[in-house]
């Protein structure tokens, strides 16, 4: 096989995997702290808009990225406020944020760029490597850093403890509310980083295309570990890249390649390939002094 094609495939695959990988890392942090975050999709709608808007406003892709991260943090903080402080069902809050973000992206686009479904072109971009957005490379150090933070630091231990058993953590003096806010807000940061890879050239309505949900699948398939989630994201991403690059040579209909991550996630959840167990207290609000 031509070496150029192999290299192109490797790079393109990383570029396609990276947004899913970043978002999956966000899912891991949030869920590890005990907050299920199905709003990843909605947060990414806002951050992908934010990077284009921010870049054009401030004249730099890095400032645009910072702006996207900031918007991601704000939207994630709403999820944290509603679910941690007000103890509302996490799925309901996530659903509401997904609906809100769907409108917000288009509403802002209409008012900032005069068009509801797409923004102006973003003249700023990260350097490219053979056509690949080089920011995708950041996924690897961020994944390793995430693993280190979660597994090797006091902060990570505390974050995991409030997701497993908030009652004991509280008894031991861990601030459950603070840790859960941290977990959810980190997921907002990750969604901001995801925007750094996901077409920063122009925002188009619907361009996140369900990646927030694939990220959830990757998180589950990676068994809630940062490295696992990123590897799962890469599995899905490289399968998708194969579909895009070699569609005519692959005898399988492309729709089945699209289904692949979701089917795999269900199979894993069903326990057919080993046991999959998320953080014990994920999805459950913590109410002090009850039970």
């Amino acid at each position, binding site marked *: 096989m031509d070496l150029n094609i192999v290299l192109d495939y490797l790079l393109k695959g990383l570029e396609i995997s990276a947004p899913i990988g970043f978002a999956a890392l966000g899912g891991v942090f949030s869920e590890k702290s005990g907050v299920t975050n199905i709003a990843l999709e909605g947060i990414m709608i806002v951050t992908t808009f934010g990077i284009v808007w921010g870049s054009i406003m401030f004249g730099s892709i890095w400032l645009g990225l910072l702006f996207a991260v900031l918007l991601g943090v704000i939207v994630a903080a709403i999820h944290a406020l509603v679910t941690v402080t*007000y103890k509302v069902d996490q*799925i309901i809050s996530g659903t509401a944020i997904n609906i*809100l*973000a769907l*409108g917000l992206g288009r509403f802002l686009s209409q008012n900032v760029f005069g068009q509801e479904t797409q923004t102006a072109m973003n003249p700023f971009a990260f350097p490219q490597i053979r056509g690949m957005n080089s920011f995708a490379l950041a996924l690897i150090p961020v994944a390793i850093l995430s693993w280190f933070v979660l597994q090797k630091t006091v902060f990570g231990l505390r974050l995991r403890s409030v997701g497993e058993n908030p009652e004991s953590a509280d008894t031991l003096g861990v601030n459950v509310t603070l840790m859960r806010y941290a977990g959810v807000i980190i997921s907002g940061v990750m969604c901001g980083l995801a925007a750094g890879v996901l077409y920063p050239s122009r925002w188009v309505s619907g361009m996140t295309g369900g990646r927030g949900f694939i990220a959830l699948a990757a998180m589950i398939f990676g068994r809630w570990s940062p490295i696992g989630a990123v590897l799962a994201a890469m599995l899905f991403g490289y399968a998708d890249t194969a579909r895009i690059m070699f569609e005519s040579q692959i005898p399988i*209909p492309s729709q*089945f390649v*699209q289904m692949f991550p979701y089917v795999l*996630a*269900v199979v894993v959840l069903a326990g057919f390939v080993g046991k999959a167990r998320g953080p014990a207290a994920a999805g459950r609000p913590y109410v002090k002094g009850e039970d």
Partner: protein
Amino acid sequence: MKRISKYSLYELAAPLLGFAASMVILLAIVVVVGENPGKAVTAIWKMTFSSPARAATLLSMSIPLFLAGLAVALAFRASIFNIGVEGQYFMGALTGAMAGIYLHLPAWLHIPVVVICAMAGGMLWALVPALLKVGRGIHEVITTIMFNSIALALVNWLVNGPLSGVEGASLEAQTKHIQPTAVFQKLNAGFRALGWDVPDFVYLDYSLIVAVVIGLVTWFVLFRLRAGFELRAVGTSTDVSLYAGIKVKQVQLGAFLASGAIAGLIGLQEVFAIRGFYTYEIASGLGLDGIAIALIGRNSPLGVVFSAFLFAFLKQAGYGLQIYTRVPNSVIYVITGVMILFIVVTNELIAKYIRALRKKEAV
């Protein structure tokens, strides 16, 4: 029982406050965008209640919204979060369409058969998440999200491949046309006879009858039959229900499948009355709408009637703003999201307040 009714007024407060707050926010956005609020109100009025035809359009739009809301609400009642309504709706609509295309039956039989097939399709798509939930204790939210995406891809493949019926004229992938015997006829003439001037372009068709019947049956089962009592008991507390000898898993399985069956009916109007064939392009996002509608309707069949109508109103209001003002249609999604968050947070605060009141009474 008396104590519950005493506080039910508080419970009604949240949706009403939520709606009021969202309208205030809508007007605030209108002002921020630099549009005249009076003009916006006129635009909304024009699109919603300015004529019998507009009002009939609202009723027509609320049919699929009602079914979507009811499907989510019924599952909610049994502590099941069916996010999979979207996928069940796609699969139900496609299954129904298949029966409408490939079966040759007299009309009196064909119509009920396609309705049953649509229900079966939706139910089958709920089956695996339902079995995983009751059999292996796997949370239904993630599995149904995954099943939605699988349904989307599967339907895409089916209408582009094995079930494709494109005859060159249309660009979008679609199936063959439905047999004339399975087409849902309009009831507009009947409404006109009753004095409501419903013009021919509005779709008030057999799907309205289906929605009414399903709504009544659901209400009857929930509040008049033992099965419904058990379902509500499971929704209130699975622990207490288990203790009372209710087969919680069976009840949840039943509720999940019934929810899927109702979801299967959402597409009837679009496929059998409006288009006459199935396409990948049928309305999407109804599953998401259904969750919002169920929440705002407090998971009761009657509440869902009102909130489905409210949603139809909001959607039309959005179009009105889009056409007559500089406020884009998408503002409605923003408002909907804000409204849900507002309602659920208010609910929690009110529940806290009621707990405090009760504590005071108990002392």
